[in-house]
């Protein structure tokens, strides 16, 4: 089994760690992940609620600051307190809260906190172990630090959009779906926060970690970047395959039922053998003009990928393997093709829509859909769960996102009862 059976009830890796998060659109996912890893994450909102509480879609399409599915998704497991930082009383409360915390996470416009005397520098001297993480579009300093940005403009300016889209370049480049610009920055921010926390715990050094969303997406675009850095070559977008310097063969396949599947052209001898057997079983060999090249893949003991560009025979075998798999796929329903191909040892994938993810046995057996009860609505809903299984310190999506200011008294009561 994965993980050791724990001696005591398992706690998260960040059990006992307190995080203060100033609510922001781009840092919300980072705070959610730290909460799932076991930290106590206290999200600080203005009295009227953070604007992301008003992001669509809403439960039953009824707009309400407690019904935004955006807010729900990115704030599971957190506590909410309301503070208006321009008021002296609340600014003091914020100072008290930070003093009781290990990590501050914020995405404020550079300079705003400094203006309130509530920036990292204002706390570093009094709490040297403090880790302070800023997530902003271009970082806190630098020539672009005050430019406006959204998920779209980050992904368009930093590389991802250039690499996504269609062979037809009259169609625009495409933004990867699902807030990936914000989430990419948040994932890097969690790595930065955890490294800094580790240094704080082991070396006693606190510090500021500055995260640039623009930089984060720039270094998360694979070959587009290193083709330029190494060889000054520019990749071009291609329908449903890697943007590349050269054109590659089509990849997306419409399966027999109209769903979509993809394959990896065979390379190893076992893959060629499996494909030959499958094609024969389905009586499709007559429909494959170049079937003998697929059989040649078996005879030659597979092919070496790097020879595709230099050896025309290898290229023909590679091409025939690809064509043959596409033919098989076009004859079967998408899910049948995907599962059968994989069971035969042929790498293949099927395009799941989000709704398919939550219904598929793979995700169910991992416990990925996590049921969370909303006592206020007297309903339970399935949420996305953990990216990994960790037996001794599990990733746990624990409870619904907080209502506005739900925990203000719970958090400040004990803090303010303590003698200063």
């Amino acid at each position, binding site marked *: 089994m994965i993980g050791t059976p*724990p001696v005591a009830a398992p706690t998260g890796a960040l059990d006992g760690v307190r995080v203060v998060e100033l609510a922001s659109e781009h840092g919300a996912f980072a705070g959610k992940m730290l909460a799932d890893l076991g930290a106590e994450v206290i999200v600080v909102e203005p009295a009227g609620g953070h604007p992301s509480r008003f992001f669509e879609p809403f439960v039953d399409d009824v707009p309400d600051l407690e019904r935004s599915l955006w807010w729900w998704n990115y704030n599971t497991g957190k506590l909410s307190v309301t503070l208006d930082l321009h008021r002296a009383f609340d600014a003091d409360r914020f100072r008290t809260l930070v003093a009781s915390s290990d990590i501050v996470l914020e995405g404020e416009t550079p300079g705003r906190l400094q203006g309130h005397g509530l920036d990292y520098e204002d706390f570093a001297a009094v709490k040297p172990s403090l880790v302070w993480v800023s997530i902003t579009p271009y970082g806190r300093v630098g020539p672009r630090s005050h430019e406006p940005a959204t998920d779209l403009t980050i992904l368009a300016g930093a590389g991802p959009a250039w690499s996504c889209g269609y062979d037809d370049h009259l169609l*625009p480049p495409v933004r*990867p779906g699902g807030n990936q610009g914000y989430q990419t920055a948040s*994932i890097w921010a969690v790595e930065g926060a955890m490294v800094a926390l580790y240094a704080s715990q082991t070396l006693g050094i606190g510090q500021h970690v500055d995260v640039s969303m623009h930089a984060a997406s*720039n270094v998360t675009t694979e070959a587009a970047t290193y083709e330029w850095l190494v060889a000054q070559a520019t990749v071009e977008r291609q329908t449903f395959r890697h943007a590349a310097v050269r054109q590659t063969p089509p990849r997306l396949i419409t399966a027999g039922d109209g769903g979509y599947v993809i394959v990896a052209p065979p390379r190893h001898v076992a893959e060629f053998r499996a494909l030959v057997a499958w094609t024969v079983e389905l009586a499709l060999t007559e429909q494959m003009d170049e079937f003998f090249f697929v059989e040649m893949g078996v005879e030659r003991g597979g092919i070496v990928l790097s020879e595709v560009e230099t050896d025309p025979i290898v290229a023909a075998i590679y091409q025939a393997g690809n064509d043959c798999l596409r033919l098989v796929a076009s004859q079967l329903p998408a899910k049948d093709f995907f599962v059968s191909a994989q069971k035969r040892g042929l790498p293949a994938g099927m395009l799941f829509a989000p709704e398919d993810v939550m219904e598929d046995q793979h995700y169910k057996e991992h416990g990925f859909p996590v049921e969370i009860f909303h006592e206020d609505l007297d309903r339970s809903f399935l949420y996305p769960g953990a990216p990994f299984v960790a037996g001794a310190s599990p990733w746990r999506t624990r409870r619904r996102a907080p209502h506005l200011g739900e925990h203000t008294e719970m958090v400040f009561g004990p803090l303010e009862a303590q003698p200063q």
Partner: protein
Amino acid sequence: MSPPRQALSGLRICDFSGQLAGAGATRFLAAMGAEVIRIEDPVTEGSWDVLRGVAPFVDDRRGRDFGGAFNNHNVGKLGVTLNLRTDAGKQLLRELVAISDVVTENFAAGVLARLGFSYEELRAIRHDIVYVSNTGFGNTGPYRDFKSWGPIVQACCGLAFSTGLNGEPPAGIGYSYMDHHGGNFMAIAVLAGLMHRNRTGEGQWIDISNTDAGALLNGPALLDYTVNRRPLRRPGRPDSNRSDSPAMAPHGIYPSAGMDNWIAIACRDDGDWTILAGLIDAPWADDPALASLAGRREAEDTLDRMLGDWTGSRDHFELAAALRALSVPATAVQRPGERIDHDEGTMAWGLWPTVTHSKMGEVRVDGLPLHFSETHWVMERGGPCLGEHNERVFGGLLGHSDDELARLREDGVL
């Protein structure tokens, strides 16, 4: 001058991870100061990692040690070769695990166990070892034995389907996005495991399923289905250049003057639209029906067409700068050379450090999007050549003599 303090100094990682989904994790941890010892197979010359020795290249030289992608993903690591089919190779690995904090790998499920290094066996060598595995589908569940690489993960987690334009088939993500984040979640798992170990003395096996990680990155769309029963497979959707969560319009990527030049514009609210409409200065833009978000969403197809006609004759860099000066988010869709060599946002950040590779020489690589005020990252040494650090690791670190190493080499162990 004393060397910079490194956050992860003193940590040792026994690393089998390759490609990007694994190598990305340990490149980050190496930059933060961990000693990463990457183990490769001498018999196949490390070709399990399909990036070893493939393009891009800095010059005309070819071979296992000259791959540009491999160098990028393995900066700062030590490289050793070890033939784990041999008893002597297994013994050396046991010696290495015994002095390591972490073992990382992204082989197919079960491969390391079949070599005799399951978690139970690793734990017997070192009781508090943190073992992190990373596969497309995890070590449990009905797809555990399925093969995967970047595009398969992105297909099966829902992100590929979610990326595309209305009326077109899915575009997918044109690179191995989830290899990057598979590596990032792997680094997070390593750090989580270390923190738990430091607090409790207990090691563990953390098993990443990269499809689960990818599905986690599609939260609002998943909830729209589980809560509202609204599938993304519906007329008009997906259309990822538009914005449904939060709702914005106009919001898209529009043509501009020149060949394959594009501008992205996002009007976050009525105020952004009013500014853009003022710049357009044409009767259609002053239509009161467009003054509200509801009106713009209602007319979105027409609005996008009219806006595209207007942007189509303009320079994308100039127009984007003009809009940004008025606080409206806009940008040219930048080509790699533009964002790397002409963008103050990446150059001033120091995002493209130069490392020195033993054979390739000086090469620029991806830096990190993080600035640490006290324990900054370091990238100086390129990715290791095959077996480059065998003497340093098996001799210097494990204490085997030159004679022993010569014999191991002769016996095909190294």
